[in-house]
């Protein structure tokens, strides 16, 4: 039991470190070109002064309501060189939300799955 649990802890820690390394470090190597969706939506429009002109599928796209939030666009207060920090915070936030939800939803040992299980 202890061995199994210890193996689980090692696995959890290892994978968590891989996630932090990817989001905190490898993310600096990400291609900064628009992604497939954005490039297709903007095809036919030109961006002048932050506004799309012309005719394209994305011509009515608006700025994000939270565009001025501290971590917007995976930067820290607009500073792109801190993408890694934003990535690490994102991994921790995702782990907290998903880990918390899945913990709440899980079947407890020894109890059958049910409304209270």
């Amino acid at each position, binding site marked *: 039991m202890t061995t199994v649990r210890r193996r689980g802890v090692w696995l959890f820690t290892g994978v968590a470190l891989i996630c932090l390394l990817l989001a905190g470090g490898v993310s600096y190597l990400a291609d900064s070109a628009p992604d497939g969706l954005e490039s297709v939506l903007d095809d036919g429009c030109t961006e002048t002064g932050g506004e799309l002109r012309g005719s394209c599928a994305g011509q009515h796209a608006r700025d994000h309501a939270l*565009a001025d939030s501290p971590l917007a666009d995976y930067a820290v207060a607009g500073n792109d060189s801190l993408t890694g920090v934003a990535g690490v915070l994102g991994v921790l936030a995702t782990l907290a939300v998903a880990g918390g939800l899945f913990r709440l939803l899980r079947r407890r040992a020894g109890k059958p799955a049910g409304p209270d299980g």
Partner: protein
Amino acid sequence: MSAIAMHASDGLFDAPTSLLFAAVAVAGIGAAVLGARRDLDDRTAPLAGLVAAFVFAVQMLNFPVLPGVSGHLLGGALAAILAGPWVGALCVGIVLVVQALLFADGGLTALGANVTNMALLGTAAGYLVAVALRGLAVRSRAGLLGVAFTAALVNTVVAALGFVLEYAIGGQGAVSLGGLATALVGVHVLIGIGEGLITALTVGAVAAVRPDLVYLLRQRAATREAVA
């Protein structure tokens, strides 16, 4: 603007369409919450949380697909193969919510549409492909990698088709739907190849270390036990 990840923004869809897909997303995520209860226990719950974190991390890693165009993992097939379809849909859904709320990536009014495409449609399609090919996946390591690749490729293309459907219902731009569909599917086949490679690599790595943690492989053993 940095172009890490990047999901549909506000303003692409009209208000009724945004509301419609918000309702679809809520219903789908609700069903996933119910389904996920069966697949989560003390052992799998923490690892399922890691699957979500991994999808978030890898979604940041845009890779080039064409000159001036990048792509990134969506992660639905990956999450479903590792953690099951219900938990997988929740993983991608949580990533999309975190991205929209913390990173201003993916419009708040488009969140329902984004969840419907990537967390629900893409994940379901990827998982169905993986289940249909499960026989190959359990036969050999190469089979597992091939199944993971194919499921992920289908996941990406179906998610793009989901966007086209949403745009057909309530898109707010003056473009031909056929042209949009062709361009979007074309580029997402290329992105899907990247998605397939990442998914095969990841599933292969997990299967090499702990095959018991790959849901797709585990299900077969469970079925056999139930039959025997």
